[in-house]
C-alpha cells in the first residue's frame, strides 16, 4: 500500500556486479561501483529518501574515492550508507545497486582501501591515480602521439624522443591509443614512475645512467601499481 515507486520502470543499472565478483580480471571494481551508482542516481524516481539521496551520496563518495579527494572516514561512510540503502530503500533498483556495492566492497576490500586511503588505483583505471609517460628506449620519434593529444602536452619534434608534461596532461589516453599500433612506447604509471628525459632528446641518445629524473622513493621498491 505504499506509494508507487517508478524507479523500476526507469530500468536497472547496467553494470553486472556478480560477474565482476566472479572474475574481475584487470578491471577496477571501484570504477565499476561508480558507474553502477551513477546509473542508480539517474534512475531513481525520487520518492524515497534512501534511493534518491542515498544513491547521490554513494555516487559522490565514489567520485571522491576515484579522484583522490576521499578520506578513510569516507570509506566507512560509504559502507554504512550502502548497507542502509540496500536494506531500506523502497525499490528493487537502488537496493540492487547498493547491494552490488556492498558485495564488491566485501570481495575486494583492498581495492577500496587503496582508492580511499592511499590514493591508488591498482588497475590504473582512475586517472587521478596514474600518470602517462613516453618510454625513451621505445619511442621511435614518429610524433603520432603529438597529433593525438588534445592538450598539447607532448613536447619534441621529428626524430626526437617525446616527453609528456605531467602538468598539462589530462590523462585522456589518446596518445596511448595512437602509439599502441606503432611502438607501444607510452605507458600509465602508478606511484612508481619510469625514468624519462626531462626534455626531448634525439632518438637513440637515451642512456639509462641511473641518474636523471628518478622518482622512486625508498619503501616503494615493490610497487603494487607497477608499470603497465
Amino acid at each position: 500500500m505504499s506509494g508507487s515507486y517508478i524507479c523500476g520502470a526507469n530500468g536497472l543499472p547496467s553494470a553486472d556486479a556478480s560477474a565482476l565478483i566472479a572474475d574481475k580480471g584487470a578491471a577496477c571494481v571501484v570504477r565499476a561501483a561508480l558507474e553502477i551508482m551513477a546509473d542508480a542516481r539517474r534512475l531513481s524516481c525520487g520518492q524515497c529518501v534512501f534511493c534518491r539521496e542515498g544513491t547521490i551520496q554513494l555516487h559522490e563518495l565514489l567520485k571522491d574515492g576515484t579522484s583522490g579527494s576521499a578520506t578513510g572516514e569516507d570509506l566507512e561512510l560509504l559502507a554504512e550508507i550502502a548497507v542502509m540503502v540496500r536494506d531500506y530503500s523502497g525499490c528493487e533498483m537502488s537496493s540492487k545497486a547498493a547491494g552490488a556495492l556492498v558485495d564488491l566492497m566485501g570481495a575486494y576490500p583492498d581495492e577500496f582501501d587503496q582508492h580511499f586511503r592511499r590514493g591508488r588505483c591498482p588497475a590504473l583505471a582512475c586517472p587521478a591515480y596514474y600518470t602517462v609517460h613516453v618510454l625513451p628506449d621505445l619511442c621511435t620519434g614518429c610524433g603520432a602521439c603529438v597529433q593525438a593529444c588534445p592538450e598539447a602536452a607532448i613536447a619534441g619534434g621529428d626524430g626526437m624522443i617525446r616527453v609528456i608534461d605531467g602538468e598539462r596532461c589530462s590523462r585522456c589516453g589518446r596518445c596511448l591509443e595512437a602509439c599502441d599500433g606503432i611502438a607501444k612506447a607510452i605507458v600509465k604509471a602508478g606511484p612508481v614512475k619510469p625514468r624519462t628525459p626531462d626534455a626531448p632528446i634525439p632518438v637513440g641518445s637515451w642512456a639509462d645512467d641511473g641518474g636523471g629524473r628518478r622518482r622512486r622513493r625508498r619503501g616503494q621498491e615493490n610497487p603494487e601499481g607497477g608499470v603497465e
Partner: protein
Amino acid sequence: MDSSVFTVCIDGAEVRASEGQTVLQAAQAAGIYIPTLCSHPDLVPQGGCKLCVVEIDGFEKPVTSCATLAAPGMAVRTRTERVAKVRGLAMELILASHPADCTSCPSYLHCELQAMIQYIGVTHSRLRTVKKAHGVPDPRNRLIVRDMERCIQCGRCVRACRDLRGVGALAYLKDDDGESYVSTVDGESFGDAGCRHCGACVEVCPTGALRDVDGLFAKEGPRELALVPCRNECPARVDIPSYLRFIAVGEYGKAVAVIREKAPFPLSLGYVCARPCESACKRDKLNEAIAIRALKRHAAENGSAAEWRSAAIARAPATGRRVAVVGGGPAGLTAAYYLARKGHEATVFERLPAAGGMMAAGIPSYRLPREALASELEVIEAAGVDIRLGSPIGSAAELLASGYDAVVVATGAHDGRRLPIPGADLPGVVTAVDFLRSAYLDGGAGAPARVAVLGGGNVAFDCARTAVRLGASEVTVLCLEAEGRMLADADEVEEGRGEGVAIKNGVSFVGVLELGGKASGVRYESIRGFSFESGRLAVDALPGTEASLEADLIVFAAGQAPSLGPGFGVGLSPAGYVLADEATGATGVRGVYAAGDAVYGTKSVIKAIQSGRVAAASADRYLGGDGIVDETLAVRPRLSGRLEAVEGFESLGRLRPPLSPPADRRSGFAAVEGSLDREAAGREAGRCLQCDLRASMGAVATWSDLAAVKSAEGAEVAR
C-alpha cells in the same frame, strides 16, 4: 467486542486499533508519537521519508509504520537502536541536499522539517553537501511561492494535488542530468498546469518550499477562519464558499438559506452590501475578486423561498418575555428578528414612518429598490416581530418601567454634521441625512438647478446622484481628498461622473456665500494636503487659491452622529455614541443592550446586522435563553474535495452585472445595476477558489503537541 477492533502492543502499551488502520494511525490515535515527514492524515502513504520506521516482532528489519497495516496481537517498538539508526541516517540524507540556513527561510519556526531536525537531533555535518539546481521562484505564480531549493521531495504536494483534488498539476520530474525534483508539470506556471489554487499543496508542505505569498491571509484569529478570507472579513461571517457552490449548480434557494443563517436581509445585501469580502477575496490577488455581492443578489432574486422560509420564521416556544427594540434599521430589526425566533415577544419602535433605518431613509432607491427591502421586512414580521412606525422613544427606563424585560438600543446615527464654517446655518444649507430623507422618505420635492455637495464619501455621491435624478443640472462634489484617494467606492465615483456629477478634489471650505439671507454658493481654497490631529482637521492651504462656486443648495456630507441625549438613560461617549461592550452589546444598564451605528458610527449594513445578532444573543441569555442565534438552514452536501484541472481557470475574468446607461440613470430612480443572468452567475460562482476546502484539511500532529511527555522520552532514545 467488534471483530474489526483489536489490540496491538506499542512500546509495551496495549493500544486499540481497527481493521484498515496502519500502525502509524493506531499509534497516533493512542497519542504515541512516531516521526514522519511524508505521511499526512489526508493523504495515501508514500513510505518515502523512512522516519516512521518501527520494529515489529516477526519482521526481520524495521518497517515503515505508515505503510504497514496494524494486525491483532502485533508487538511494535517505536524507539529502538535500529530504528534510531534508520531515522538518523534518513534525516542526514534529507538534510544533505537541504539549505542549512534556516533563519533566512520565511518558514523558520513554522516548519515541520525544522521541528523534526530538533526531534531527531542530527546536523548537516557528515555527508556530502548536495546542491540541487531547481531555479528561482517563478514570478508568474501570484499566490504560491515555490522555493524548490527547500523541497525535500516528500511528495505530499504531489499526492494532495493528484489524489485529493484530481488536478495533477504537480509531479516528480527528472532534469537533464537525471536528477529528480518536484515541480509543476513541465515546469509550467501553476495557472498553465491547470491549478485550481485550492492551496492544498501549500497546506501539506512540511517545509518552506511551497508557501503562500505574504499577506494572503490574516495573521490574527483562528486559522480555519483566516484561510477563508472572504468569510473572515465578513462581519457576520456568512459562509460564502458554501453558497457560491450552491449558486454554481443553480441551487439558489439553498444559497439564500446559507446567507440567512447569518443575515435576514440577503436581497438587500445583494444590492448594497459594502462587500468587505470582495476586498479580501483570495482570487483578487490572482486576477479579480469573485463578484460575491452580485451573486448574492442573483440567488436572492431567483431562489425559491420554500427552501428556507418555514425554518427562517420558526419560533421557539414562547418564553413570555418581552423585548423592546428602539430603532428599526438593520441592527434593530436583526436583533428583534432573532429575539422573536428565540420565543420572546419582540417589538420594534421606529421613530420614522418607514422601517429599515438608513436602508429606507438614506440609501438611494436606485441602489436599493424599496420592494426588495419590503420583501425582507415581511419575513421579519412573519417571524413575529411587531414593528411600530412613527414611535419615538424618550428613554430606556420608560420601556423597562412599562413592562419590557429587556431593551435593545439601535437608534443609528441620523444627526448630520455641519462643517464649522461661516454661513453653515443659512437657509439653503442642508445635511446629507436630511437631504436624503426628504428625497426618499418624505416623497421629497425636486432639487434646485445648482447643487454643491461637500464631502467625498459614498454618502456625498448618494446626495449628488440623487440631486441629478431630482432634476439638478449642475451638481458638484467638493472634497479634501485628492483624485484617486476619495473615500467613496471607485464605482460610485465612476457612475456619478457618468451621470454628469462634477468633482472638485483637494479643496477645503472657507465659508458659505450669502445672497439675500440665503446661501448662494461656497467659497473654497486649494490645499496641498490635510491631516487629522487629535480629531481636528489641519489643512495645508495653498495661498491665493481662494475661489467660489455658485450653488442654490449646499449639502454637507461630512459625517453623521447619533442623536441620543443623556436623557435616554444609557452611557454616552463625549461624541454621543452609546457606550457598549463590543463583544456583547451590553451597556452599563442591566437588561439594556445596544447595537449598530449608535455604538460605533456609520459603517455598513452587514456590520449593523452582525451587531444586532450579538445584542440579540446577549439579550436572549439575559432573558434565560442559551444565546445561540447561529443556525443551519441548508444542509451542505458532502464535499469530495475533487476539483479537476480546468484549463485557463486562473485567468477566468470577473463577470460584471450590466449597468443601465447614464441617460436612463439620470432620469429616474430605477436600479442602476442589473442582475447577472443565470449562465453568468454559474460561471462567476465557478471562479471561486473554494478556500474552505483547505480549511477543512487534517492537521499534522507534531512531536511538541502530540503526547508531549512521551515524545520527549522518544527524543532521548532517538538521540
